[in-house]
């Protein structure tokens, strides 16, 4: 067992974990943060994407011990005082989700894109989401949502 200290969605945790424990299972099974789901076992689908120290990672391909001393943000840590982020709002308004299983990962991956490129075009969005699979939406509305969130964020910062 290894001792780790990690901050998740603003709360600090100290834990003893098995070295092989995946970050996603640590979040889900140990911390009860079940907003981040698991979709595959080959880090192909991106459903479990979270932010670790400001960069999006697939939490099924990171060990909990690798997050030691780090800061993790999950989809559950995005809304502030019940106020959704522009991406969360855009996913809702553009009907960019159906079953919603891939949605946390999509939103977290899209945050990464918008940090790097606040004004992407549709092709850049499609390319940036290559690590995230969706089976319901055909992606079109997801692309629209990311573009709409980019536009909304510009309005906010302008």
């Amino acid at each position, binding site marked *: 067992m290894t001792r780790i200290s990690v901050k998740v969605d603003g709360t600090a945790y100290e834990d003893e974990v098995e070295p092989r424990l995946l970050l996603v299972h640590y979040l889900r099974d140990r911390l009860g943060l079940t907003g981040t789901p698991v*979709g595959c076992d*080959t880090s192909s689908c991106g459903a479990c994407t979270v932010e670790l120290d400001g960069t999006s990672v697939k939490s099924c391909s990171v060990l909990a011990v690798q997050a030691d001393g780090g800061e993790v943000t999950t989809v559950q840590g995005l809304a502030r005082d019940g106020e959704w982020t522009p991406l969360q709002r855009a996913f809702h308004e553009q*009907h960019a989700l159906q079953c919603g299983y891939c*949605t946390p990962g999509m939103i977290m991956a899209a945050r990464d894109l918008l940090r790097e490129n606040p004004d992407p075009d549709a092709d850049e969005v499609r390319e940036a989401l290559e690590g995230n699979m969706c*089976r319901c939406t*055909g992606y*079109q509305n997801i692309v629209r949502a990311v573009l709409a969130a980019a536009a909304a964020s510009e309005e906010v910062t302008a």
Partner: protein
Amino acid sequence: MTDQSTDRNTEREVGRSRLRKEDARLVTGQTNWTDNISVTGLLHIAFLRSPMAHARIERVDVSPALERPGVVAAFSGRDLAEGLGSLPCAWPVTEDIVMPDHPPVAVDEVRHAGDPVAVVVARDRYAAADALEAVEVDYEPLEPVLDLEAALAEDAPLVHADKGTNRSYVWPLKTGEDYETVKRRADVVVTRRFHQQRLIANAMEPRAVVVTPLAASGEYTVYSATQVPHILRIMLATVTGIPEQKLRVVAPDVGGGFGSKLQVYGEEAVALEVARRLGRPVKWTESRSEGYLATHHGRGMIQDIEVAATGEGRLLGLKVELLADMGAYLMLVTPGIPILGAFMYPAIYKMDAYDFTCTGVFTTKTPTDAYRGAGRPEATFAIERIMDELAAELGLDPLEVRRRNWIRHEEFPYDSIAGLTYDSGNYEAATEKALALFGYDDLRAEQQKRNERGDTVRLGIGVSTYTEMCGLAPSRVLRDLRYAAGGWEAASIRMLPTGKVEVVTGTSPHGQGHVTSWSQIAADVLGVPFEDIEVVHGDTRAAPQGMDTYGSRSLVVGGSAVHHAAEKVVEKARKVAAHLLEANENDLDFTDGVFTVKGSPEARRTIQEIAFETFTSHDVPDGMEPTINAEHLLNPENFSYPHGTHLCAVEVDTETGQIRIRSYVCVDDVGRVINPVIVEGQVHGGLAQGIAQALYEEAVYDDEGNLVTGTMADYLVPVAGDLPEFVTERTETPATSNPLGVKGVGEAGTIASTPAVVGAVVDALRPLGVNDVTMPCTPERVWRAVRSAKEASA
């Protein structure tokens, strides 16, 4: 009975683009997936699965696993067989169908890679997975059975030796004139063999089940990522012998299904049995690669199809011979899937003779069953592709050959040669609209120029003018098809004392937005605000009756049931209102949720006030039950028949085989639209799956029967960059067989798009001598097709 809600105009909910009520918890991660469920003392189940396609089990010893840390119990198939019966098949399509036993965990023989052989129960999921390694199994390999035609040979190895054959059933449908007679009149006969590759549904949420027992009373709650909680409850009662009324099945948030969760899986039965034996709550969650082996596959057919036509391209007859891969076992509706397709091969076309035969074949592969469209995409693909080939044979435009055969608008209702009555449709309108959006003539002109120039990148145009049957299904039809259940759907409306409303539905959504659409339907009839309505579903205690969600049946049957139940509430409320307002029922108007007395508008009661008055029951009419709640079970009188025209333009690089979808236009007629946003979203998703079958996806087995595409890293689920922008439009020809005029939309995109895309690829390559490319049309297959056409012409 008149539908008085139609008086409302500006505030009508039906037809409005409402954002979904479902989204709030999904975008914030406050979901209730089955794998999220955790209770005190929860144990985790893991399955040891066969690494071989076919083998005799000589010995299973689970005792070494019991020595491993955290392990609580372990069972072989033989151990479990004491409490568990065979898994059910509810669709014995013929009287003499061969139906083998299907133990939830194999006992004597494994019949596909991934067939479970032992079960380990441990305190956490890692410990359970670890302990599988300790289980000892001796296998004696047997010959796999992989090829459908070889499986039917006299000396073929047998998947089920006790049955003496790999042929499960032969199901014929011959209608109209005799096909061979008609064929003799024909000027042209076109024959093709098409392959429907096996597909894996890949719902984003893997399957999962949690069982919590209440040992003292013998009750169990089964949480499952299922599309069919009501069917699952009945079937689990049958398989385990636990009385049905002691079982509660809950489908919490379910992350997609596409047919793959329309099933009664062995893992669900085993979880229930383990919970019964140990008296402890248990959970099983599949890994994705485990799911590839154990969650049923879709498609898997060889289609020999032939059309006979006149020199002008008028269809005379259609003959279809199908070999359908059942896989190793018949699961819940496995044999019926190709039969659903049988009714769809004649599609929108008129003809004199139809001759269909399906042979169901056992192989040592994962069982097949429903997958988005279930039988209908396969049928639509074959008929649309052979219409293209007929057009090419006669030198006609593919749309022209369709026009010469399709049912004209004024001919509805129309009795199809397959025995269906198409209630409404307008193929002309959808096609004209699609052509205008697509720029058909311009694209054809560009294609011709490119062909004349001999461009290495060719342009191809694909056409699909499809119809499908939704609203499964009239119960009498299901009887005739030997399906062991009815096709009705249940809805009830609970008017709460505070005036809020609960709509209880027997459908069980997993991404389709029922909560929003059902709220819209009820809001219009009851005249209460959309926001005041909640929808209860997916729990056999809270929504006790239902036939669940599959085959685009939910809106057509379930949504219509909601409409009728709401009408009953209004009629009951009318009695109370008449009593309270001291008026004759016939003198009451009901508009926007308010009863008024004709001629004296100040005398009014809202339906929500009446709910409260009924709750207190201080002053209800004599002899009336003190409730305005109502229930309606709708037994549909007919299927519904969405249709549409899909047009696809592709650019095909003849040197690399690379395909790029340049534009995709579809005009679907799904009848009246409840929520345009949701309809468009469903079409997008359907297109993605249909295009994926055309270009990307295939479950590939090697010669030993191992699944080569065993993970998401090997099986090409398209990502955002693989799919184009879609142009989606609609025409609206209301269905006449339900009060809403709706037809269903979930599978339209999937059914229509596959032939449009493959048709476009073939169209691009036809000048080079190519007349087919097997799906999925990978760059390598395209390149090989081009090369062999070149060699043939050299």
